[in-house]
C-alpha cells in the first residue's frame, strides 16, 4: 500500500545530504510518495528500508507493453481509481478489429488505421493498433491475414484474436517479433497459449466468461506460473453494466487489496453496434479503467471523438485549470466596446467574465498567458508584466476589430500602466478596478470609448 511522505521519511537516513537532488530527506520522501522520483536516487538508504519501501512502491497494476518499435504502447501501472486523486497515467490503446477472412479488407483497414492521425491542441493523435480476428479459416489463413496486415502497416501493433493455438502459433511465427497481444488464453487452451506467449515473449490476454473474476484470477495465476509475465485481463463481459462492474472490481482488487493475480491492464470490446452505440461503450471503457479498447471497424467520426475523450481523461488534473490565452468576446462586442485584459487562471477568468456579463456591457476580454496564475500572483512572479501585456495585445489579432486604442488593466497592476504605455505605442492605458465586482460600475459609468 502507498506510504505517506512522512512514513517514507522515517525509513530514510535523515541526513539531508542532498545527493538525491532534493534539499532535504523529507522533500525526497514526499516526492517518492507521489512517485515522482525513485528510491535508487538515495545512496545511503539501508537494505532494510529498501526492502519495505520496494514492497510498498511496486506497481499494483503491471505495466504491459504491446507491440515493438516506435508505435508500441504501454498500458497499466495505474495507481488511482479516480483521476482527481492523482492522474491516470497510461491511456488505453485504441485498436480496430478486422476479420481475417478477406485479405483485401484486412489490407485496406490496416492501411487506414496505420495512417490515421488527427490534430488536437497541437498533438497528433493516432490509433494504436489493429486486431485481426480469426474467422475460423484455419491456421494458414490466419497467419496470411496477419502477414497482409504487417506488410500493409509495418510497425503497427497487433492483437491476434483467436482461441486456436495452432492459428496463434502460425501467426506468431509470422509476427512474433512484433510483440503482438495474443487474445486469448481461456480455461480450455491456456497451457498451449501460455507456451506460445512465452516462446515469443508476447503479452497474453486471459479471458473468463461473463465477468467471472474468480475464474479470471485462476487463469491469470496459471498463465503466470507457466512463465508469462505480461498479462492482459478480459473478464468476458459484453454489456455496459457487466463491463463496468467487472472493470471496477478489477481495479479495486488491484489497488485496494493489492491483489497480484489481477494486477494487470484490462481489454474491452465495444461490440458491433452503431457508431453511437460503440461510442457509449467506448466512453465507458475510457473513463472506467480499460487498458486496450477494441473498436469494431474503422469509423473516423467515432475514432476522433474517442481519441479526444481519451486525451481529456488522461490529462493531468493536478495542473491548475487554465483558460486558453486568447481574445474572448463577452456579449457581442463591437468596434467601440471596451478592451480588458486579465490572466488565464480559470477562476480569475470566470469571475471577470461573470461580472462583465452581469453588467450587460459587451467587452473584448484579452486573456494573457500567465501560467494559470491570478493577476496578483502572476504579477508577483513576474509573469504578468508590461512586456507580457504588450506582447499579448500585439499577438491577439485585435487588428481591425477595434476603432479605439484603449486597454484597461486590472487595478492590481495599476503601477504597470506607464511601462505598458511605453511598450505599446499609440495606446492609451486605463486602470480598471482592483476587484472584479466593481467592473460593472466601471464599465457603465467610468469607461468611455472616446
Amino acid at each position, binding site marked *: 500500500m502507498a506510504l505517506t511522505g512522512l512514513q517514507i521519511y522515517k525509513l530514510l537516513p535523515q541526513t539531508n545530504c542532498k545527493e538525491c537532488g532534493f534539499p532535504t530527506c523529507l522533500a525526497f520522501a514526499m516526492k517518492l510518495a507521489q512517485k515522482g522520483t525513485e528510491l535508487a536516487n538515495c545512496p545511503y538508504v539501508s537494505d532494510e528500508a529498501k526492502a519495505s519501501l520496494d514492497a510498498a512502491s511496486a506497481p499494483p497494476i503491471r505495466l504491459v507493453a504491446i507491440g515493438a518499435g516506435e508505435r508500441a504502447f504501454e498500458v497499466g501501472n495505474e495507481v488511482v481509481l479516480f483521476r482527481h486523486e492523482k492522474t491516470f497515467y497510461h491511456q488505453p490503446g485504441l485498436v480496430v478489429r478486422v476479420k481475417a477472412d478477406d485479405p483485401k479488407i484486412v489490407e485496406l483497414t490496416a492501411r487506414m488505421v496505420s495512417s490515421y492521425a488527427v490534430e488536437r491542441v497541437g498533438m497528433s493523435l493516432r490509433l494504436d493498433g489493429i486486431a485481426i480476428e480469426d474467422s475460423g479459416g484455419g491456421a494458414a489463413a490466419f497467419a496470411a491475414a496477419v502477414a497482409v496486415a504487417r506488410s500493409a502497416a509495418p510497425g503497427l501493433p497487433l492483437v491476434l484474436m483467436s482461441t486456436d493455438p495452432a492459428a496463434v502459433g502460425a501467426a506468431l511465427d509470422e509476427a512474433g517479433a512484433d510483440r503482438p497481444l495474443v487474445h486469448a488464453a481461456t480455461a480450455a487452451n491456456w497451457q498451449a497459449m501460455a507456451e506460445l506467449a512465452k516462446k515469443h515473449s508476447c503479452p497474453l490476454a486471459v479471458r473468463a466468461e461473463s465477468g467471472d473474476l474468480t475464474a479470471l484470477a485462476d487463469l491469470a495465476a496459471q498463465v503466470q506460473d507457466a512463465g508469462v509475465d505480461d498479462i492482459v485481463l478480459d473478464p468476458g463481459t459484453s454489456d455496459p*453494466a457487466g463491463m463496468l462492474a467487472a472493470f471496477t472490481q478489477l481495479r479495486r482488487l488491484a489497488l485496494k487489496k493489492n491483489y497480484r493475480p489481477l494486477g494487470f491492464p484490462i481489454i474491452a470490446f465495444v461490440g458491433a453496434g452503431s457508431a453511437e452505440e460503440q461510442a457509449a461503450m467506448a466512453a465507458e471503457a475510457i473513463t472506467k479503467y480499460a487498458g486496450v479498447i477494441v473498436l469494431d471497424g474503422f469509423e473516423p467520426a467515432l475514432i476522433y471523438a474517442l481519441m479526444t475523450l481519451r486525451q481529456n481523461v488522461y490529462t493531468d488534473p493536478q495542473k491548475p485549470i487554465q483558460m486558453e490565452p486568447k481574445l474572448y468576446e463577452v456579449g457581442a462586442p463591437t468596434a467601440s466596446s471596451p478592451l480588458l485584459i486579465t490572466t488565464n487562471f480559470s477562476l480569475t477568468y470566470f469571475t471577470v467574465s*461573470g461580472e462583465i456579463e452581469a453588467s450587460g456591457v459587451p467587452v473584448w476580454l484579452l486573456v494573457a498567458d500567465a501560467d494559470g496564475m491570478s493577476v496578483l500572483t502572476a504579477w508577483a512572479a513576474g509573469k504578468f508584466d508590461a512586456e507580457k501585456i504588450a506582447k499579448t495585445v500585439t499577438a491577439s489579432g485585435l487588428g481591425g476589430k477595434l476603432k479605439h486604442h484603449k486597454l484597461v488593466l486590472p487595478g492590481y497592476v495599476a503601477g504597470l500602466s506607464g511601462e505598458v504605455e511605453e511598450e505599446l505605442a499609440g495606446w492609451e492605458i486605463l486602470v480598471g478596478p482592483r476587484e472584479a465586482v466593481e467592473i460593472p460600475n466601471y464599465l457603465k459609468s467610468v469607461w468611455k470609448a472616446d
Partner: protein
Amino acid sequence: MTELEIPVEKWSGAVRLVTLGATGDGGTRTSTVTVGGETTLPFLHFEGQIPNAPVVAAEVVDMHPADWSPALLEALGDDTRDPAAWARKMVGLGADLISLKLRSTHPDQGDRSAADAVATVKSVLAAVGVPLIVYGPGVVDKDNEVLVAVADATKGERLALATCEDKNYRTIVAAALGNGHLIVAQTPIDVNLAKQLNILISDMGLSLDRMLMDPTTGAVGYGVEYTYSVMERLRLAALMGDGMTQQPMICSVGEESWRQKESRVADGVPESWGEYATRAVVWEVTTATALLHAGADILVVRHPRSIAQVQRSIAALMKGV
C-alpha cells in the same frame, strides 16, 4: 481457488431524492420524475442501491434557433417553430422531461416580456405531461423578471427554475420558495463553489430536496475532464456523507456539445474528423456517457438519436448483474 472477495465500499451517505413535477396541489403533470437516492457510485449495483435511473431531458427553445447546427435542425424538422409541438415531439422520442429555454426573452434575442414567457411555459405544460425545467435567458435582471413571473403563474407545478448562480440566486430562490418549485444551482466547474452555493441557498430556507446542481458542463474536447472530475468528487463527497453535495446533478450536454465546431461544421474540416452527421451525434453521446459515469442524474440533450442512445445506455446500465 476460493471465491474472490470483492472490495465493497461502505458509503454512509446517499444522493438526495428530488422529484420534479407534481400531479396534484396545483401540479398538472401526468407523471413526475424522481432522481437521486443512489447509495453507490454510478451503476455499481453490486455495492448499493440505485433506486432511480438517470433521466434524459430534451432541450426545447421558445423560438426557432436558426443558429443551431444544421444537423440538428434537419433532425428536428419544423416543430422547432412551436415550443409546444417541439416538446411533444421530444416526449414522443423518449425524453423523460423537457428543458425549456426562454431564449426569446433575452434583450438581444427579441426581448419578449415575462408575460409572453408565462404564456409559452403554459403552452408547453399543456402540451406535455412530463415535468419541466425552465431556463431564463441567462441575463441577471431578465432571468429574475421572467422566472419570477413563470414561478408565480405555475404555482405547485414543481418546475425546476434555472439557473441560480452565486451572483444571482436570491430572487429565484424566493420565487421557488413561494410557489413550490425547484431550482438549479449552477457553479463554474468547482467542487467548493458548488457546495458553497448549495449552502447559501439552503440558508435561505429552501429545502435541499428542491435543489439540483449543475456543475457546468464541458463537452468532449472542451473541458469535459474538468466537469467529469468535479462531478466525481461531488458524488464521492455525497456518498461519504457530506450533506451539501448530495444534490442530484444536471448536465447541459446538448448545449455544450452542439456549440463546438465538431458538431456545427460539415465542410472544410480535416478528413480525419469523419462523416459530419455521425460525428455530431457521437460527440453528444460521448459527452453524455462520460458524464453519466461521473454521476449525472439528468442529461439535457438535443438530438433525437442521442436521446435514443442515451436512453438505451441507461437502460443497459441499470440492468443489475
